[in-house]
């Protein structure tokens, strides 16, 4: 596997080198027409890479990128023609202006999603287009703006091949920055939002903030692309920034492969060259695009890149499934820091907490104290309100009345990412993993709050960022080893068997280094031997100083490891005490344990 990975990496480097040399030499052997095509491809690559950040990685479909691209182009054109600013000033300003509009476009994504968001972005694109046409005084109306100067330094004019190299250089930077961001906590946060917003919040990611960041970044790329287009053409008009162009942008990443770095590159190259190859069919260009879109959605959902990947991996994947078997007895822990904490006994306290949904009272005036450093179990019949309690503590719900105290302080804000930040981690009853992301990345998302990777440092991939990334990976691997999942590290989470997905959730939650760990039915889907292992794992977690609140139905587990048990039914506490007491409590036996003896 290791050598295989190295071989793959080697192959990647080699092809990258080959393509770079080719790109550097190409203009010298091509006529100006083809150089011009290459320049256009470069601009589309920038645009598509940006769109890919927000749509491919973060999962927020935008059909308004034609508008953002237009904003970049017009800003540059106006600054150059009206104020006489040079390209070198106009470019960064265009990026900035487009980014500001990106923030604006990002806001709707906080409230709406899916098709509705797509509609809003379409609206945005159309409004921008209309402004370009109607605001004749500023934009020149349908005629557009002419005489946009070619970039120059002193007397050195960037025409022909020179402009080509300038674009190539900027595209290179754009791709490297995108690559660096994607392989960092930033990119992982984007993917986490795409795969599972609920679980992203629970790991401490401020979902709203990161959605806006994704839109802003994306818009910045569109702005750069637009500015380059302006200065390359020397003339712009609203015709270049229509709704059709927004669809074309989306097509670039869909055909190439969403959520990959090379996808947009391939998409831009194929879709720009294709019409040239089919020169005689110019009239049918849109028709061809339409057909292509249908084909790529139906037949190759991960685009051309996905198609190639599947070819490679199906040949290279090891044949024996045994290699995915978890290692047994790997319970060494070195990563969880034993910390002395002191919250005067109870780390968590629920005082008269109620939660009702419409007419249904799920939790009814519940009082509960969880002592620091213990394993406290919450049990009760199905529908008793256990998961609701977990959801209240972890900030998914706000209590209807009553108060929750954590570490001695009354909780006032109920937001999952804030609770995560304050030291509460959780797992979910119905598995909530980032399905398509690798097992390792799932754990790394859990470390989001602790990984110190600043935005600019990550863009440049400074040594400090590199180090922190390496450290994080090592720690994540240690966590996987702790749960016996090490061998799965590179597999997508969705490929794990159910029981192991639940274990992965524990690894991810531990990655937060929480003070309080909420486990919602961790043993569901494990067989009895695996439950014994789980008991050891939970006990070790406790020994490291983490308080555990456990919701579980497997009584042998609960009775074996709990220090204290609270039993609820219909949202009300019906009993509490140490395991021995609960086991013999008649009310509990009747409501919950049942009487059948083995």
């Amino acid at each position, binding site marked *: 596997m290791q050598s295989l990975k190295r071989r793959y990496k080697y192959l990647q480097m080699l092809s990258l080198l080959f393509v770079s040399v080719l790109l550097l030499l190409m203009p010298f052997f091509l006529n100006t027409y083809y150089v011009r095509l290459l320049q256009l491809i470069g601009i589309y690559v920038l645009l598509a890479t940006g769109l890919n950040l927000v749509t491919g990685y973060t999962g927020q479909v935008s059909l308004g990128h034609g508008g953002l691209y237009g904003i970049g182009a017009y800003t540059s054109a106006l600054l150059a023609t009206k104020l006489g600013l040079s390209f070198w000033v106009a470019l960064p300003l265009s990026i900035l202006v487009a980014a500001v509009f990106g923030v604006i476009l990002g806001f709707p994504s906080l409230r709406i999603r899916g098709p509705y968001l797509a509609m809003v972005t379409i609206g945005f694109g159309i409004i921008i287009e209309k402004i370009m046409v109607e605001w004749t005084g500023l934009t020149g109306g349908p005629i557009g703006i002419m005489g946009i100067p070619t970039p120059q330094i002193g007397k050195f004019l960037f025409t022909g091949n020179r402009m080509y190299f300038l674009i190539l250089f900027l595209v290179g930077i754009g791709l490297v920055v995108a690559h660096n961001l994607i392989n960092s906590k930033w990119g992982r946060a984007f993917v986490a939002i795409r795969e599972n917003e609920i679980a992203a919040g629970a790991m401490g990611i401020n979902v709203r903030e990161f959605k806006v960041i994704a839109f802003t970044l994306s818009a910045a790329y569109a702005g750069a692309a637009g500015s380059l287009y302006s200065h390359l053409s020397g003339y712009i008009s609203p015709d270049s920034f229509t709704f059709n162009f927004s669809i074309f942008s989306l097509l670039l990443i869909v055909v190439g492969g969403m959520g990959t770095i090379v996808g947009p590159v391939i998409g831009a190259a194929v879709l720009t060259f294709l019409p040239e190859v089919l020169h005689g069919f110019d009239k049918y260009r849109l028709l061809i695009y339409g057909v292509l879109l249908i084909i790529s959605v139906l037949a190759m959902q991960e685009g051309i890149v996905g198609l190639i990947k599947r070819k490679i991996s199906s040949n290279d994947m090891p044949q024996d499934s045994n290699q995915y078997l978890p290692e047994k007895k790997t319970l060494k822990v070195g990563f969880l820091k034993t910390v002395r904490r002191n919250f005067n006994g109870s780390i968590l306290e629920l005082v008269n907490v109620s939660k009702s949904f419409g007419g249904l009272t799920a939790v009814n005036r519940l009082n509960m104290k969880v002592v620091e450093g213990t394993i406290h179990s919450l049990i009760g019949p199905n529908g008793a309100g256990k998961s609701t309690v977990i959801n209240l503590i972890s900030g998914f719900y706000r209590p209807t009345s009553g108060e929750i105290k954590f570490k001695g302080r009354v909780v006032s804000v109920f937001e999952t990412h804030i609770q995560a930040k304050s030291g509460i981690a959780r797992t979910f009853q119905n598995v909530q993993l980032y399905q398509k992301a690798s097992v390792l990345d799932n754990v790394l998302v859990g470390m989001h709050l602790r990984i110190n990777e600043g935005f600019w440092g990550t863009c440049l991939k400074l040594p400090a960022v590199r180090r922190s990334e390496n450290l994080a990976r090592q720690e994540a691997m240690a966590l996987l080893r702790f749960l016996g999942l090490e061998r799965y590290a590179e597999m997508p989470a969705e490929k794990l068997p159910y029981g*192991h997905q639940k274990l992965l959730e524990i690894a991810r939650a531990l990655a937060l280094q929480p003070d309080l760990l909420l486990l919602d*039915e961790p043993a569901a*889907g494990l067989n009895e031997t695996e439950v014994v292992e789980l008991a050891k794992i939970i006990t070790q977690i406790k020994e490291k100083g983490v308080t555990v609140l456990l919701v579980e139905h497997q009584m042998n587990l609960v009775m074996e490891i709990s220090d204290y048990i609270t039993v609820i039914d219909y949202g009300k506490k019906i009993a509490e005490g140490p395991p021995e007491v609960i086991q013999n409590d008649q009310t509990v036996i009747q409501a919950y344990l049942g009487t059948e003896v083995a």
Partner: protein
Amino acid sequence: MLRVTGLSVSYGSVNAVKKVSFEVAKGEIVAIIGSNGAGKTTILETISGILKPSEGKIEYQEKDITGQKAEKIVRLGISHMPEGRKIFPDLTVEDNLLLGGWVRRRDRQIIQQNIDIVFSYFPRLKERKAQLAGTLSGGEQQMLAISRALMSSPNVLLLDEPSLGLAPIMVQEIYRIIKELNSQGLTILLVEQMAYLALKVASRGYVLENGRIVLNGTGTELLQNPKVIDAYLGGKKKNQKEKPKEASL
């Protein structure tokens, strides 16, 4: 009733199930046990037509059904309750049930009869029938998943971890219901992590390891087999004195 011969299933190039053969006779409860990743769920999903086998044969009532589409297989009388509930969260409880009875939808009487039956098993669902299924608690969703599988009046019921997420008292109830369904003539193929429980109700059982069947026998035989005790019953000897109540669950 159901005969599987030399079945292999692979995901890409990973073989999850390797040349597995077993049989379920009419009126039997057969359990498949094994650790996570052994291939239990894969076998059920292949029988019900969700996955296609790479080799082997699946026969139902002496007819080859290998590689048939899932909807066809439900119509033939094999109903599957998937692992992890997979209910339709944005539909009401009642609509979930009606969809379970899709293949019998023309026979309103049978549908109504089936609804009455599952409500008598799970009165909680009747109380919640107008509620969106996604708002049910985990255990209630599990009840719904089982009920939905019963709505098509199957001859063979494939149950993937029916006890998942259920309170002990509910687990006893579910297994009582399983036995009752079985005594009324329903043939059941059961996959279960709680091996002890499964083997107790099963007439026969198979132990799956790394996609291969390594042991088979009657439920009682397997329960006494030291290998099984070691690997799946937590190394615990049954009839152990300590905590008899919980150990059984």
